């Protein structure tokens, strides 16, 4: 304690003592470093191993998977992938998911941004009430809505259709999107908007030409957040997209694949299907990991 409490100038006057102390500190930290790296590596292995195993197993034959789960494949059997892609229709489900997510993401962002903009920048009667009504939707578990939602969608003639899914995904993403973007639009400077209005810019042009470009960082964060949640959606398609399997999304296709491959004992096909579904997400994640990490954590923190 006493040595450490000494002002740094004294330490500099006694280089020997300082060096000894330095070495001791470094040794302690070295131990700590080894300790940290040990645990960190252990968890990294725990996280990566199942995923790596899935990838490697997608190249194995069923015999290899059964006899030696830890072994490497004897050859790279890409036929597993093509079997999953065509025979198990993973390709088609992939495309379906893409269509639905493209539609729902566009709709969510458009409606979310416009509503948030109004809440953030305009005064009108009942604004608070409507805003809380909107944002309150974040609080409720989706399970509560499932039964009536099933009938709302069916009565609208949208059951088993992509349009139905697109509308429902967008509707359920609106509360968070509006919440996030309202806060974001509030942070943008008012002076620019006022200047534009004085220059004779209309309210609509102001939004599309000035405010929307300025809100780009916020829009990107919330779009990434919504993209992942729409792409990974499971319970809504499961309830609203029963029947016609040619319209299924990826999550449903994978579930069906797991069930059928379980019966047939085609494990390699299942691993190939899972790998195909994982790779694009992995690629997007590695490319945008900074934005995704900050976007998702900021999203949860609100």
């Amino acid at each position, binding site marked *: 304690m006493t040595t450490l409490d000494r002002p740094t100038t004294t330490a500099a006057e006694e280089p020997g003592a300082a060096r000894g102390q330095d070495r001791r500190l470094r040794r302690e930290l070295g131990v700590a470093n080894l300790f940290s790296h040990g645990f960190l590596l252990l968890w990294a292995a725990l996280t990566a191993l199942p995923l790596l195993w899935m990838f490697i197993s997608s190249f194995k034959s069923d015999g290899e998977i059964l006899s030696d789960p830890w072994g490497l494949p004897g050859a790279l059997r890409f036929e597993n992938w093509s079997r999953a892609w065509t025979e198990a229709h993973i390709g088609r489900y992939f495309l379906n998911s893409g269509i639905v997510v493209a539609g729902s993401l566009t709709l969510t962002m458009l409606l979310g941004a416009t509503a948030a903009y109004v809440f953030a920048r305009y005064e009108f009667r009942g604004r608070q009430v409507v805003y809380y009504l909107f944002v309150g*939707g974040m609080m409720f578990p989706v399970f509560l809505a499932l039964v009536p939602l099933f009938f709302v969608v069916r009565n609208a003639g949208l059951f088993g259709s992509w349009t139905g899914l697109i509308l429902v995904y967008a509707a359920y993403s609106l509360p968070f999107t509006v919440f996030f973007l309202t806060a974001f639009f509030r942070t943008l400077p008012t002076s620019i908007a006022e200047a534009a209005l004085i220059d004779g810019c209309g*309210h609509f042009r102001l939004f599309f030409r000035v405010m929307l470009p300025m809100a780009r960082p916020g829009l990107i964060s919330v779009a990434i957040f919504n993209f992942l949640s729409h792409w990974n959606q499971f319970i809504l398609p499961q309830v609203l997209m029963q029947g016609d399997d040619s319209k299924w999304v990826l999550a449903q296709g994978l579930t069906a694949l797991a069930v059928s491959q379980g019966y047939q004992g085609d494990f390699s096909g299942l691993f190939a299907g899972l790998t195909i579904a994982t790779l694009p997400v992995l690629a997007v994640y590695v490319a945008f990991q900074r934005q995704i990490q900050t976007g998702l954590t900021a999203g949860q923190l609100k």
Partner: protein
Amino acid sequence: MKHGKYPLIITFLVPPLLLYGVFVLSPYLQAFQISTTNWLGYSAHADPVGMANFRTLLHDGQVWNAIKNNAIMLAVVPVLTIGLGLFFATMLNMGGRKGRAGVTGVRGTSVYRMVYFFPQVLSVVIIALLWKEVYHPNNGLLNGALRALGLPAPTWLGDPRTAFWCVLAVMVWSNVGFYVVLFGAAMSAVPRDIYEAVMLDGASRWTTLRRITVPLLWDTVQVAWIYLAIAALDGFILVQQMTNGGPNFSSDVIGLRMYETAFGSESKFGYASAIGVVMLFLTLSVAVLALRTARRDRIEYS
């Protein structure tokens, strides 16, 4: 500047409100009404029965069993996930060798963070299907390793004593990375000199974590707590895909119970909605409770 404001408010607010009202608000409101009927699915016939569904719920052993499992998840998942998240975030942000006060991150922090976070962007369906294979009694990764070490190979998901814990472990596994990043972001906002000062005073890493990091991060921990508590009340996808509640209802959760009651063979929509209402109140009370306890602790620290 007020001029022309209302056309914009109306065009910008009406479409999102309409979508939200039809697909979110109205189902939630209808759910309460349906929960007081004896509606059996697709029949037009639904008589009001008042609170009868809720009275039945009180004596429904299966629902209580599911609630018990959710309660265990609620007690275990947040503690483990936050604990591991804080531990690894501390290692990553302060386990480094450089600097005499030892408050720098370890080498390769960004790589660790990338690997840890990955399960968070993966679809829960993929995680569930992958882990189902990892736990596979014959060709799974886990039993492959156990057999190689000459240890007995349990059936994991096939055994009522272990199935639930296996699912719970996957829940923790998939969430830890997110909280490592979340806590890491919060830690980097804490001024360095605080750490340098306490470490120079000879505080151990454990004391530093307990006395400095956790109190300073308390707001973030509180948010994490609420999110994990809400997640622990769900667990639907993991359970449905990995065990479907079995064997012998040992891994059942309330979301699955609700889903099976509504969309299973019996299609008891009235009763399922009552379970949904119970879920809503459980979620809300857990959120309020988590906020309350967290607040009390914060006062103790500051």
